[in-house]
């Protein structure tokens, strides 16, 4: 929107930093944008917690008016399932608070005891956005705690899918322990092996066997504990008749250990214990690097994290909150404004205006009449309604999508490059090993054993096993800086293979804020003032947009102001009744079936209508043009096709544009594309895309606030990084190139080693130098090359 000539003094909200559209909120000579922000400030200032504003300017978040009811927290059963610990005097609970974002949040939430001294202690885990609160349960109930947190702007997210507990389960402690053991042994073994390498004087020979035995003792935990996973994985894969990279690794470890034992026990040599320990140590490091966890993100969410934990049941005795899993068919439930309908139901009482945008992708709220079936997942945006449950939560229309087979085999098997290579690698390796052993059999039997083991030791694909993890994790951290979060490293390789792109419309290619507003009709300056005066009384997003669009600072007092949810607003200004709202509100014929149409009536005179269209994301046209060059483009929308003509200029692939797609349709569409051997990447945002995201080869959830719910997917892309999509794909392709190159380098090392190995000439010293050398080369090569490519792709 272009700025008007008249200068406007920007007043920023002291709490959240938003523009104050209306300057009605003052407190202690500070300006606030809304009552919410003001009341948070009030609470904080009354409790001498204004330091909150000292650490950061405007640390708060805008207070959305969510009318959450926490009565259910007084139900002992529900409360007990949420608490971590509880005894006679204190309770401990871990809460997930998405609003945590800066050091002020940290400071405030750790000083909760100043607001209410029933709180004993509160600790934040910043990256996980969790706070652990210990409170005296005699003086404060769980409900009061949650209400207090909400009142200062930190409403915890409590949903059916327990994000907190699921997240805390994930732990890499086990791997770190293994690395610690391997590192410890590696260090000590190196120390004890040095004398052997530098040569021992004759009087020191007595230590030789002592050092050897000590080395063997150190090798035991490395092989048995740290390296255990390689044996297990190799064995499992062999039984499934798959040869992966773990097989030659396990073989190498085993052979190295056996040969070392043999040499040390028989006193014929020093063994390869240091190479062995180093190998396991580096391999585990590679594994650790590969496991990147985003504490604040979850890729496995489903409908449950969108649902509340409890619902209000209407009994003869009155209203009573019950846990969701106790909800039965035939129960009568109460859904208040802004609450989610948890099961398929029939409307019994009340005016239902339900927002299904998250479930079906349709942006317009749907009106329901008594007796009509209301599907689960919708959000009531009118007054409270009463519903009767006709299907249990787990069998509703919405959840049936999760019972689709796309969700059955949970792990999508992504075929990585190293998997492919290792199949051939293992076979070639065995051929060389047996070949050289067979050759030496005829000349020198002792040498046959030596060359056989030497081949397996030297060809142990350590560097090979490290090139993928180090390259891919470098890519992951580059993506991460650009707000593109991948579930794991295999996704990078998948991204490089994509040849078909499927976009969802609403929420994916549309921007979260702002509308393209146009007015059909005639409005005088005074009319605009009148409209603006009425509209600024309303908190409805469309009203706010309207006020912003009209941009008139002059306004008149409004009397008899009324807001009818889901319909419109009206008020008397300068003795004229101004009505702003839907066609039915004004009792006129609707001009078109578009949802974002707001009609205006001033006095008795119908003035025209505003149409609100969602804005496209920045640079959408260029993005489509860039991507469309190389990839197949498709667009699926759950919405009506009213936007079609606006999309065609930027999305010329009309035959691939489909509207009114149900979640199942989207899933089937992707399946059909895949039948044509296409590698499909789906970009979506809501629950309605969940099936398609899961079915696609690569599902990316696009979100504008990564703390919000996003459906299960392989990657989460922040809306801010949306424009960089072509660069991401390019970088993924480059990463695969880097992996190929580093495979080349490590194979060269292997060939050099093999040249000596097949001759049976492999000294422990040679192995001890070659192994770390190749490892270091690979690690440095991959990270440097990846970063150079990232610079080329303008990602860093």
């Amino acid at each position: 929107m272009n700025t008007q000539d008249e200068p406007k003094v920007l007043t920023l909200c002291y709490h959240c930093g938003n523009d104050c559209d209306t300057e009605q909120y003052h407190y202690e000579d500070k300006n606030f944008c809304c009552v919410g922000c003001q009341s948070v400030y009030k609470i904080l200032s009354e409790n001498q917690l204004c330091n909150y504003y000292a650490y950061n300017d405007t640390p708060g978040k805008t207070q959305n008016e969510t009318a959450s009811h926490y009565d259910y927290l007084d139900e002992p059963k529900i409360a007990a399932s949420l608490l971590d610990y509880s005894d006679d005097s204190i309770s401990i609970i871990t809460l997930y608070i998405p609003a945590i974002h800066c050091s002020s949040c940290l400071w405030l939430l750790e000083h909760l005891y100043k607001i209410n001294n029933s709180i004993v202690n509160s600790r934040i885990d910043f990256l996980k956005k969790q706070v652990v609160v210990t409170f005296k349960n005699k003086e404060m109930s769980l409900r009061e705690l949650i209400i207090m947190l909400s009142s200062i702007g930190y409403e915890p997210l409590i949903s059916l899918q327990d994000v907190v507990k699921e997240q805390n389960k994930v732990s890499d402690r086990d791997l770190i322990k293994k690395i610690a053991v391997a590192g410890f042994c590696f260090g000590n073994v190196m120390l004890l092996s040095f004398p052997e390498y530098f040569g021992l004087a004759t009087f020191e020979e007595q230590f030789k066997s002592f050092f050897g035995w000590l080395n063997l003792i150190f090798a035991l935990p490395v092989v048995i504990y740290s390296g255990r996973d390689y044996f297990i994985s190799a064995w499992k894969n062999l039984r499934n008749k798959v040869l992966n990279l773990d097989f030659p690794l396990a073989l190498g470890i085993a052979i190295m250990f056996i040969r070392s034992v043999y040499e040390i026990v028989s006193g014929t040599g020093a063994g390869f214990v240091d190479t062995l320990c180093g190998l396991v140590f580096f391999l585990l490091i590679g594994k650790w690097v590969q496991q990147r966890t985003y504490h604040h993100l979850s890729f496995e969410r489903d409908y449950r994290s969108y649902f509340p934990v409890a619902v209000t049941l209407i009994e003869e005795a009155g209203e009573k909150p019950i846990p969701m899993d106790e909800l039965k068919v035939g129960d009568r439930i109460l859904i208040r404004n802004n609450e989610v309908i948890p099961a398929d139901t029939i409307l019994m009482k009340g005016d239902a205006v339900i927002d299904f945008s998250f479930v079906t992708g349709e942006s317009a709220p749907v009106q329901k009449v008594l007796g009509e079936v209301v599907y689960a997942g919708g959000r009531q945006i009118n007054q409270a309604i009463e519903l009767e449950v006709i299907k249990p939560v787990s069998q509703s229309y919405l959840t049936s999508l999760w019972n689709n087979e796309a969700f059955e085999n949970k792990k999508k098997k992504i075929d990585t490059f190293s998997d492919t290579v290792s199949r051939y690698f293992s076979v070639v390796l065995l051929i060389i090993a047996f070949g050289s052993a067979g050759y030496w059999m005829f000349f020198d039997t002792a040498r046959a054993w030596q060359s056989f083991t030497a081949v397996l030791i030297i060809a142990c694909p350590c560097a090979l096993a490290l090139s993928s993890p180090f390259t891919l994790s470098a890519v992951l951290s580059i993506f991460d800086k650009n707000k593109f979060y991948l579930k794991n490293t295999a996704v990078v390789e998948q991204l490089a293979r994509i040849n078909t792109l499927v976009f969802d419309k609403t929420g994916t290619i549309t921007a979260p804020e702002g509308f393209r507003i146009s007015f059909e009709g005639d409005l005088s300056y005074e009319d605009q003032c009148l409209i603006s005066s009425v509209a600024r009384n309303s908190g409805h997003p469309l009203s706010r947009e309207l006020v912003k669009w009209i941009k008139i600072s002059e306004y008149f007092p409004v009397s008899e102001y009324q807001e009818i949810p889901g319909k419109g607003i009206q008020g008397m200004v300068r003795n004229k009744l101004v009505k702003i709202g839907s066609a039915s509100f004004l009792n006129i014929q609707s001009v078109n079936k578009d949802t974002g149409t707001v009609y205006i009536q001033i006095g008795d005179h119908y003035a025209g209508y505003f149409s609100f269209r969602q804005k496209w994301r920045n640079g959408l046209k260029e993005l489509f043009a860039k991507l469309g060059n190389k990839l197949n483009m498709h667009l699926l929308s759950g919405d009506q096709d009213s936007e079609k003509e606006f999309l065609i200029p930027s999305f010329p692939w009309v035959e691939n544009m489909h509207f009114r797609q149900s979640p199942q349709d989207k899933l089937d569409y992707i399946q059909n594309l895949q039948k044509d051997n296409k590698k499909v990447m789906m970009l979506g945002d809501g629950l309605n895309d969940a099936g398609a995201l899961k079915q696609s080869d690569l599902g990316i959830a696009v979100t504008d606030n990564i703390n919000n719910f996003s459906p299960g997917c392989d990657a989460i892309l922040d809306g801010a990084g949306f424009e960089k999509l072509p660069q991401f794909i390019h970088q993924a392709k480059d990463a695969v190139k880097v992996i190929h190159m580093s495979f080349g380098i490590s194979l060269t090392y292997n060939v050099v080693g093999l040249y000596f190995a097949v001759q049976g000439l492999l000294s422990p010293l040679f192995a001890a130098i070659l192994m770390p050398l190749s490892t270091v080369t690979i690690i440095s090569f991959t990270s440097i090359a990846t970063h150079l490519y990232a610079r080329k792709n303008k990602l860093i």
Partner: protein
Amino acid sequence: MNILYFLIGCSVLLALIFLMAFFWAMKNGQNDDTYTPGVRILFDDDIPENPKK
């Protein structure tokens, strides 16, 4: 040179103690959150009422 046996024993023992200390720290959750303590330490006990601009 027999003293070497003793010294090596000592060095291994010392290394073992460090390994155990590391395990103990892990078990205590000292490595679970490596970010928050770094921020927490920067807070003053009491900042004068007027926030700095």
